[in-house]
């Protein structure tokens, strides 16, 4: 038997290119929602302005801080695995997961607060309001909801990669899975970077 047949071939550039192509479809998914937001905002500027007053800017800012920091720890975990510092990489991955969970906990308090005030899809208080405000809250729940779903998926992926790193399936010589998980996590961060001003700041 040919000896070279035992050498496993891995296409790292292809793996990353595939991940980027997937991320492009994510950009188009959120891009479509940004389009809907910008059109409705253009048509209902005053309503969006008033509805935006209901948003808690502090929670939004804290969540921005959390996600930006989690992107840093994600980047550091990849930098660590490249230097074959396994435990350091695992530690940074764990911190990233914890920050992701903290983001969701914040989101939970934020949403419960809106629901307590009567702002949720189809709520009597909301339906009595103007068309533009209903649209604002609809877009708010859909866009931050789908984003939060991405955070949940991202946390699960990083958790999975953390186990692979523990088992040395992700290591200093083969870390493309961690890199791709990182790319997904950073994209979720990039989307939040735009969601934050759209819902919490532009008033």
């Amino acid at each position: 038997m040919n000896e070279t047949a035992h050498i496993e071939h891995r296409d790292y550039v292809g793996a990353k290119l595939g991940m980027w192509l997937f991320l492009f479809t994510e950009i188009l998914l959120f891009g479509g929602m940004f389009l809907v937001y910008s059109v409705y905002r253009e048509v209902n500027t005053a309503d969006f302005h008033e509805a935006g007053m209901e948003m808690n800017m502090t929670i939004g800012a804290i969540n921005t801080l959390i996600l930006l920091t989690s992107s840093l720890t994600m980047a550091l975990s990849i930098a660590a695995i490249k230097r074959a510092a396994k435990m350091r990489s695992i530690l940074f991955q764990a911190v990233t997961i914890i920050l992701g969970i903290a983001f969701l906990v914040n989101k939970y308090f934020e949403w419960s607060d809106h629901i307590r005030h009567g702002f949720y899809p189809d709520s009597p208080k909301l339906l009595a309001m103007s068309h533009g405000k209903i649209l604002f809250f609809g877009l708010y729940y859909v866009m931050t909801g789908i984003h939060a779903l991405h955070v949940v998926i991202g946390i699960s992926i990083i958790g999975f990669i953390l186990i692979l790193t523990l088992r040395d399936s992700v290591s200093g010589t083969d870390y493309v899975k961690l890199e791709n998980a990182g790319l997904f996590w950073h994209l979720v961060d990039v989307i939040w970077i735009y969601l934050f001003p759209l819902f919490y700041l532009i008033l």
Partner: protein
Amino acid sequence: MEQKQEERAHVPTQVFVIVWIALLCLTGLTIKAAQMKMGEWSMVANIAIASAKASLVLWFFMHLKYEKRLFKLLIFVPIITVSIIIVLTFFDIWYR
């Protein structure tokens, strides 16, 4: 087979920390810009700052700086696609 590409790019940890600090500063700036009540200009300022932040994340955290040229060019495909769709839609809204 070892993962060789990028090997020349052992990015120092400080780079990531500096980018993170820059991102935090830009977040502070965007909040300040929103509070200045510049009307439509605050929208422009906020989107510009968000784009600067997104570029920092893409360029450094997502390693585009250290990738092959193919990756650097490809990212413009979705960005330009979304931009064209939004601009053309607004022509419809403004001039219909």
